[in-house]
Structure formats: C-alpha cells, structure tokens
C-alpha cells in the first residue's frame, strides 16, 4: 500500500501487470508547451520507463497561464522548455529516465532519435501541422502508434492513430491545412489544454499497458465554453491510395522537397522559410489583424509581430526580418501560420 503507484495498480485495467509494463516503456513526446507539459507530467507521475522530449523553445511569461511545468523563475532564467521541464519532472519522479533535447523537430533531427532506440509511442504536442504530418509519416514508416492532439480557444481535438489499423492524419485531412488557428492568434484557456491531454494520456496508458481493446476509435472534438462534444466515427475516411498509410506508401513528408525549409539570409538579419504549399494570405489576414499591424497586396502580406517584421508571400515563402536565428524564425512562423 505504501507504493507510490498503489492507486494506479488498484485500477483493474492496469493492475500490477500493467504497472510493470509501464515501467518498461519509452515514449517520445514532440513539443513541450501546453499539451507537452501536461502529457509529460502525467506519464512521469504514472511511472513510465523513459520519456524523450523534444522542443526548440524557451520559457516565456505568456506561457505560464497554461503550461503546467513552468514557474516564474524559469522565465527569469529564460530556460529552454525541455530543461525546465526535466528539472520539474525529476523532482516529481526521480526514477523515470528523462531524455531532453533542445532542438527543432524535423526529419533530420528526429531520425537518429527514432532509429537508435525502440520507441513504443509518439505523443503529438506540437503547435503546427508541418510537424504533425511529419510524425504521421514517421509513425507509419516505423510502425509506432501516435496520439494526435491540438487545441485553441476553448476547443480541442484528439485522435489515436495505429499504423495498419486506423485512418491516418493524411486520410482525415486530405491536404495539409493551409492554416490552423493558433493559440497566439485566437487565444487559449487552460481547461481546453487539459481536456485534450486527458484524452491523450488515457489513450497513452491503454497503449502502454497493451489494452488495445479499450482504445477510442473515434476522433473526439469539443468546445468547453459552448458545451459541445462530438465523438466522430472515422473508419470510412481510411483511403487505400493514401500516400502514408495506403498500399503503396511514399511518406511524402519525409521527402526533402516537401519539407519546410529555413535559411539565414546572410547580412540581412533575416531568415527565409520555404513551405511546399501556397499560403492563402487573404484568409490569414483576417486573423492576423487582431494581433499586429497588417499590410497587404495581391502577392504578399506583411505584419509587425513581437519585434519582428514578417512578410508572407502567397507562393509559400516567408521572410522573418529582425533575427538570424532559425529557431526563433520558425517559432514566429508557426505562431502566425500554425
């Protein structure tokens, strides 16, 4: 009874056996913002074996309203999120192996992480669809389940993707969404984050204790402020010709030409980001007008946001003026475009 996991082992579908399994499992968590913080904390409190966390960002004051692992002191020290996270997580549970990487999650950086060790589950806690489609391809190529999660305002969604069984993200969304609403453009409340992580963490526990029967097969989406809740049956979305989970997969987002690329423009204090797609700047303009001064012409949109001037071209190029740092530029880019 004095065991720290006793209340979890009393829960029948986990039990002693489940707890032993949990202790041997390795989870890869991509992103350590709002969804990442709570997912990480849940898994570490639950006693998994190893948690690998990847995030390129550092802790800022505006994070504290919803990102559970961080305190004011982490902001003052401008600690990278994964470092602040690791400090707190080890204080919570010193017996879990935490492997923290301050880095951008892209195929170049993720590949060694995936190929050099066995990973039982990937949890999506990113803030953009570029990375979600990358995770989706990696999941299917390496046969690792992943749990999608996203939130904005008082809304959120989650879906559990098992390679070879469920539809994948590509099946559900057809094309890369041109632009998803972001927490930085329309806001977010903490309960929406927690609702998504409640679903993600419950699904994670089911996968890690190997109770596949109990997995949710529906996509869940909700709006906490307006009291909406939908669980959507998605079996029919699965496509035989899907480039990721279909019969002849090509994993499009692992291919060089489809990856979002960034480069420092020498001597200009500017980073250029190139996406594979057109950007619908008129849709974007409506949203961005709320957070900064927007100027537009038929070819481009420019916005002053934080201390950067960002210029977004319809053809898919984005210039972030005011920095030579690719990670800062990517952060601004995903805050604006999502």
């Amino acid at each position, binding site marked *: 009874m004095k065991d720290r996991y006793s209340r979890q082992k009393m829960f029948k579908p986990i039990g002693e056996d489940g707890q032993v399994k949990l202790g041997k499992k390795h989870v890869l968590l991509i992103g350590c913002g709002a969804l990442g913080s709570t997912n990480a904390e849940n898994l570490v409190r639950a006693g998994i074996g190893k948690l690998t966390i990847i995030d390129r960002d550092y802790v800022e004051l505006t994070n504290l309203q919803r990102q559970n692992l961080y305190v004011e002191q982490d902001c003052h020290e401008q600690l990278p999120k994964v470092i602040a996270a690791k400090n707190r997580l080890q204080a919570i549970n010193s017996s879990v192996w935490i492997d923290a990487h301050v880095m951008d999650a892209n195929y170049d950086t993720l590949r060694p992480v995936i190929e050099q060790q066995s990973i039982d589950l990937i949890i999506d806690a990113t803030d953009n669809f570029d990375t979600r489609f990358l995770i989706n391809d990696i999941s299917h190529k390496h046969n690792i389940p992943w749990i999608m999660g996203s*939130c904005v305002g008082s809304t959120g969604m989650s879906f559990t993707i098992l390679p070879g069984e469920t539809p994948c993200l590509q099946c559900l969304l057809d094309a890369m969404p041109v632009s998803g609403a972001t927490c930085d453009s329309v806001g977010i409340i903490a309960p929406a984050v927690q609702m998504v992580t409640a679903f993600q963490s419950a699904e994670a526990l089911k996968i890690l204790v190997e109770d596949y029967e109990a997995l949710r097969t529906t996509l869940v989406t909700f709006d906490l402020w307006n009291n909406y809740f939908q669980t959507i049956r998605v079996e029919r979305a699965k496509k035989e010709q899907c480039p990721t989970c279909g019969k002849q997969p090509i994993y499009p987002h692992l291919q060089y030409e489809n990856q979002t690329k960034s480069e420092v423009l020498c001597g200009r204090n500017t980073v250029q980001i190139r996406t594979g797609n057109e950007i619908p700047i008129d849709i974007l303009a409506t949203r961005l007008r709320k957070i900064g001064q927007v100027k537009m012409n038929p070819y481009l949109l420019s916005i002053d946001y934080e201390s950067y001037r960002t210029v977004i071209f319809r053809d898919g190029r984005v210039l972030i003026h005011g920095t030579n740092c690719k990670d800062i530029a990517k952060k601004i880019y995903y805050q604006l475009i999502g």
Partner: protein
Amino acid sequence: MIKILLFAQLQEEFGVKDIEINLMETTVSQLKEILKANFKFPSLDHCMVAINEEYAMDFDTVQSGDTVAFIPPVSGG
C-alpha cells in the same frame, strides 16, 4: 431542419455558434455552397465534416433532422 454546429474559429467567422437551415435534403458540398453564399467568407473548404458524429465526404447526403458539424483543423498545442 438541418442543424449545423460550428467549431473553433468558424464561430467567429460566422458570428454564431450554430445554425438551423430549413432543408429536406442536400449534399455536404451543396451545404457548403449555401453557407458560403449566405455568410461572409467562411473558410469551410479545409474543414472536417461530420454528419451525426460520422465522418462525411463532399458527396454525402444530409437530411432533415441531421446534425452537421464543421470542424476546422486547429493547430495549437
């Protein structure tokens, strides 16, 4: 009567969170056209659509009594 639930940023774009439309039968793509014609600029094209909590395609039929949810992908995390 077809009930339409709007999720996330669609609520702001439409200015309401749900809509009732008096139609006996239509398709998902026709419904999108009707909404686009009657409301200023909704970014419906990239939404997921569910009819009575089942994933729907553009050619699927919507009938009186159905609840149709338009769910735009949100990217926050």
